[in-house]
């Protein structure tokens, strides 16, 4: 589905990533974990052509129109209602307002926001806005979904709930996912394969781990799996080795 080969990225003259190789097979859930500032987000931006790589190639087996991008913040169009925000992508694809609106409503319903279609973003809570953003992306039925720490801004309970909802939707829709996160537990709980990035600048992929936990998964129960604990330990030590000494060891 997605193959990133020997990709280097830079902002102007500042190198961020070098020689990145990673591969996400169709229907699989991959995560990219790494310290803040390692340039994880930039990879997603390069995949969606918001940024062009300095070197290397990015191959996708689906056109850009089938790639969904769930951003870190929930910047919805403030002047559009929840329904209009969700319908936006469908309208861009030429659906009529009525068609797109109906589809948006059903997605809002799926994400527990039935009856919230006429609200403006500022009338919604952080969790509700995140759900609208998820509906906005999933309504386009992407084959490849890129997520950039989409849950970072949410409190623990809402986060757990939305993560599970999204995981269910992804598993049911057999959507291929590349998730970028600094949350190792989240990465393991959700993914089939985890890539570990080294500290930037010039960050690179330093490890790749399979997560042999069966699906469908429950985000909470997954954490009880013995594989989870041992993999978490491995990931921590890999990242700790790499972190600057002053940051100390993780708890």
């Amino acid at each position, binding site marked *: 589905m997605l193959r990133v080969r020997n990709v280097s990225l830079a902002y102007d003259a500042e190198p961020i990533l070098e020689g990145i190789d990673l591969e996400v097979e169709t229907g699989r859930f991959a995560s990219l974990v790494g310290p803040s500032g390692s340039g994880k987000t930039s990879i997603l931006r390069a995949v969606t052509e*918001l940024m062009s790589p300095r070197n290397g190639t990015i191959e996708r087996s689906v056109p850009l129109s089938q790639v969904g991008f769930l951003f870190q913040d929930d*910047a919805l*169009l*403030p002047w559009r209602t929840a329904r209009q925000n969700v319908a936006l992508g469908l309208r861009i*694809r030429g659906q009529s307002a009525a068609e797109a609106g109906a589809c948006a409503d059903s997605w809002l319903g799926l994400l527990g926001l039935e009856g919230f279609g006429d609200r*403006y973003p*500022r009338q919604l809570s952080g969790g509700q806005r995140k759900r609208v953003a998820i509906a906005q992306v999933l309504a*386009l039925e992407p084959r490849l979904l890129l997520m950039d720490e989409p849950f970072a801004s949410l409190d623990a309970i809402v986060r757990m709930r939305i993560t599970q909802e999204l995981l269910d939707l992804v598993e049911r829709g057999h959507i291929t996912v590349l998730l970028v996160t600094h949350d190792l537990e989240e990465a393991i709980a959700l993914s089939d394969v985890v890539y570990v990035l080294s500290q930037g600048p010039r960050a690179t992929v330093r490890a790749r781990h399979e997560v042999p936990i069966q699906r469908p998964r429950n985000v909470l129960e997954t954490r009880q799996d013995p594989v989870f604990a041992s993999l978490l330990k491995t990931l921590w030590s890999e990242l700790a080795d790499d972190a600057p000494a002053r940051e100390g060891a993780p708890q």
Partner: protein
Amino acid sequence: MSPLLNRPLVRRTAALALLLLLWEGLSRAGIIDPFYAPPPTTVADAFVSLFTDGEIWPHLQATFTAALVGLFAGLAIGIVLGFAAALVPLLAELLEPVMILLNAIPRVILAPLFVIWLGIDLASKVALALILVAVLIFFAVYSGIKEVDQRLVERVRTLGGGRTVLIREVYIPSVTAWVMGNLKVGVGFAFTGAVVGEFVASSRGLGYLLQFAQSTYNAALTIALIVLIMAFVLVLFALSERLERRLLRWRYV
């Protein structure tokens, strides 16, 4: 405090009434010179007679026409130039220094020049109101577009939106917000332009009347005219506010 006095509006009105009463009393008692500060009742008389003898209408019409034509033309020109400069770098390069200069100077100093160029009739007043408003709106639009939330631009792009969609879904709504935020200032500027233009040279208008009242040392008429202009600007402010709340409904829900 009595329950009635608990309301800010009641307190403010009461304070104003008290001040007017005091002014009236002091002026009548001759403690302050009625020549400089005629009592409010005399001002009210002057105000009423402006309307009863019908003398005011052509002046009102002149000032309103100049201010409103200047306002709308200034809005249109400011919006078009702002968009153009934001989209065409060469134009921005040429326009920006001119606009910065025009923004830095008190633009009313251009009034005499407009009189020389356009005569003492309506055109010179419209031109002054227009340039006051256009520069303000130009910066609102130009910086509004340059400072558009890039996250929104990226969202729309990743949802498949091209240039047209971006302009419709992101740029126009954000620029509308900026322009509406400046509309009240624009209304004030338009009246400033019209009235100052009339001060400089004219044969009609509230500015002309004010000039006349001042030259005859008619303090009552001067104050009455000031109150009249304030009243009209306040009405226009209220209308702008309603328009803003309507267009920016998402902000007030």
